């Protein structure tokens, strides 16, 4: 007899119940992670339409996959990895490559990325828009680590496993990302300088 999912039930338990045919378990699982995954994809891709497409593909891939959640892997890690891989596949098809680790070192991380943000968001002057511009100004590896930390609430070790990167590299990327964002958010002049 199917029972209503418990609010404290783990993601893996909800997924198992959904695999047994309990749609309510999937509803709860979806409500838990829909916003975080969507913002992660929006922030990482910088393209809402692309984020919509990847978001849908990610969930449909999860739905149609009959594999059970491995006990030693967090559902969040599993879910975000699907979304990340989908986005990377898309970029690859478009001739774009995620990860320029060879071109980045700790010295480069300390330098502000010169990628400009959308002009319309700068003009608004609002914090949210400034945040988005600042986020897009980050190198992709830093932005990815920051988004996984902020949206998925993953620990550094979990981020390292997901991105298949050394833990120390992840830690340094997160540190530099936070420093840049803080500087961009607190001092609009710096942001304006980046924009120029």
């Amino acid at each position, binding site marked *: 007899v199917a029972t209503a999912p418990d609010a404290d039930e783990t993601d893996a338990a909800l997924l198992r119940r*959904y695999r047994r*045919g*309990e*749609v309510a378990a*999937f*509803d709860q699982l*979806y409500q838990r992670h*829909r*916003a975080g995954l*969507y*913002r992660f994809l*929006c*922030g990482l891709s910088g393209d*809402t339409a692309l984020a*919509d497409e990847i*978001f*849908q593909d990610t*969930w*449909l891939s999860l*739905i*149609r996959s009959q594999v059970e959640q491995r006990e030693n892997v967090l559902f969040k890690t599993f879910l975000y990895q699907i979304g990340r891989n989908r986005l990377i596949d898309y970029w690859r098809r478009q001739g774009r490559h995620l990860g320029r680790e060879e071109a980045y070192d700790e010295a480069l991380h300390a330098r502000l990325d010169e990628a400009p943000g959308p002009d319309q968001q700068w003009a608004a002057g609002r*914090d*949210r828009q400034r*945040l988005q511009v600042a986020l897009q100004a980050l190198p992709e590896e830093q932005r990815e680590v920051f988004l996984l*930390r*902020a*949206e998925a609430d993953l*620990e*550094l*070790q979990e981020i390292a496993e997901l991105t298949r990167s050394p*833990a*120390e590299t992840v*830690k340094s990327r*997160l*540190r530099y990302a*936070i420093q840049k*964002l*803080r500087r961009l*958010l607190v001092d609009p002049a710096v942001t304006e300088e980046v924009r120029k």
Partner: protein
Amino acid sequence: MSTQLPDEEQWLLQHYRQLSDEQPPSALDAHILAAARAQVAPQRPSWPRRLGQWLTAASRAQRGSLAFGSLASVGLVLGLVWQGLPQRDEMLEQHGHTEQSAMVPTPAAVMKPQGPPAMAAAPAAERQPARSAPAPAAPPSAGEPAALPVPRAAARIQARAQADAQMQMDEAAPAELDVVLLEILQLREAGRAEEAERLLDGVRGRHSEETLQERLGELERQRKARP
């Protein structure tokens, strides 16, 4: 590796989360949830698969029906046996003697002929004891209370028949004797004493002299007393 972030980093993450409020479009939510429901809904399999499932289910059902039918039959038989045995015992207790007397001749039935009158039963039984009567029964035990009344009843009936026959003989004898004795008295009165004496000798073999003289005296008194 320490996962603790400085307070500054915690503040920035919290600030970012407060400002980040993008939500997936509701149409996208509906599409994904509908796909999730459709995925767990029972799907119609292909016809070879349906055929295999039907055959499997049919054979399984037949096996189940056969097993269930066998169990039900065994249960029915056991129930009938358990309920039938006491009833049969009760019937045997209630009608046992009737059935037994109808099927197996009892000593009383053998001793008592169906057709001849009761008067002839006893002599017949006495004349042919080895041929018609069963072997003498063993002395009745405490577990066979019904075996005792049968010979007693037969003996009682036999004795009753003998008594009735004797009574009939006794009743007929005085009348016949009186006729002979009256004729003797008439012969004596007519002076034909010799004929009267020969007739009296004829009845002396069946009756005592005392009875004959007593009856003759009584009949003579009755003749004299008549007008």
